[in-house]
């Protein structure tokens, strides 16, 4: 086969694969790749976690590490509960005043391990070892150490992709906890967050906590996103913006919780 024919064949195969992918006909082989790679990925990411642990702390040995992980999981659950309870309390008070209406929401948690990090230089995403068979759905919020880190963007049977809040393609409805001003939290390139679309009249200051607003109904209100680092308010603008420091440690993700 000469080179010209080879290149044409390669391009044709590539186009065929794209067609198969976007028509959903290649789901089977893609699922096979994910299923085969997942357990080995856990093994490798386990090595990575150990490497990180040893490089940052000397005392992480044996049982201490296991206990530490258990406690971290416990803290994650409790922090989420606290933040959602605070919001629930506020909501409850308002509803009592207005309608004497009570609402109970049951949130389920499931823990997951990070299998892969995105190969891209600029995108921020992870793959976890929980999928549709565990009840995970697109849009489910993902939390770590009690703070929201992203949402499920793609679900397969045994694994899911999580789009982190700091990804440039990530947009979440957010609110400033102190003033209840609502806006949109957008991912920035380089581990940053931007709170946008806050009306000019709203007063936001450095240090304010930013939470999920719950608008759109995709995720519950009250999950902590981060704190305001710098407010950027222009006189001629309709909206003001603020730089937000993510509350979660997004540089060391190993175990996460999914709310569903």
């Amino acid at each position, binding site marked *: 086969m000469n080179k010209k024919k080879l290149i044409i064949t390669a391009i044709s195969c*590539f186009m065929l694969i794209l067609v198969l992918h976007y028509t959903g006909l290649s789901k089977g082989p*893609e699922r096979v790749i*994910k299923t085969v790679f997942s357990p080995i990925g*856990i093994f490798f990411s386990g090595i990575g976690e150990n490497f990180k642990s040893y490089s940052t702390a000397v005392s992480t040995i044996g049982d201490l590490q296991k206990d530490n992980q258990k406690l971290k999981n416990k803290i994650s659950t409790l922090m989420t509960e606290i933040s959602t309870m605070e919001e629930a309390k506020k909501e409850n008070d308002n509803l009592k005043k207005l309608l004497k209406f009570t609402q109970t929401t049951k949130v389920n948690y499931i823990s997951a391990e990070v299998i892969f990090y*995105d190969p891209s230089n600029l995108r921020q995403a992870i793959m976890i070892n929980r999928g549709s068979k565990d009840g995970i759905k697109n849009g489910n919020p993902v939390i770590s150490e009690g703070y929201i880190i992203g949402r499920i963007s793609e679900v397969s049977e045994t694994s899911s992709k999580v789009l982190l809040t700091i990804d*440039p393609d990530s947009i979440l409805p957010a609110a400033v906890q102190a003033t209840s001003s609502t806006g949109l939290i957008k991912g920035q390139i380089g581990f940053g967050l931007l709170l946008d679309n806050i009306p000019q009249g709203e007063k936001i200051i450095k240090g304010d906590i930013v939470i999920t607003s719950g608008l759109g109904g995709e995720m519950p209100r009250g999950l902590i996103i981060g704190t305001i680092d710098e407010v950027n308010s222009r006189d001629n603008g309709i909206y003001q913006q603020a730089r937000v420091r993510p509350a979660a440690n997004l540089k060391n993700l190993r175990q996460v919780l999914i709310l569903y």
Partner: protein
Amino acid sequence: MKYIIALSLPIIILFQLSLLEGFKYLHFIPNLILVFFVFLAVYMDLKNSVIYAFIIGLTLDTLSINTFGIYSAFYILMAIIIDFIKKYIGTAKSFSLVLISTALSSLLLIVIESLIISSLKGSNIGVIMPIISSLFLRVVSSTMTVFIFYPIFNSINIKNPTYE
């Protein structure tokens, strides 16, 4: 030797995605998959390197959040570019050829990804400029990895695995 490559490839992909990419925020983490592929493309003929480009590209496309097809297209393009470089610049499996190809492919990958990101952010290339300079560290570190891979590849002496 084809078995060594067939075994090394998934290990390198897994090692990169589940371990090294976790340290992405450090910026100087090399892209071993890319370096490995460059070696394959330099040491093999176009037919074999295109096959490996498909395998690597499709695996990365399946596991990545990026638009499906980006990595397949990129690796096939790189196979063709490296073949072109081999033909018109130097056919020998020289160190400089591998070094140039690695630097070029790392740079090209960043450019392609930057263009995708800028299209996501409303066609404003300015938003990615602050991070671009730090990404050049990745180009440098990936290129430096060639110093480690080169003696290994020379020692296993890949000629053309398919015809062995």
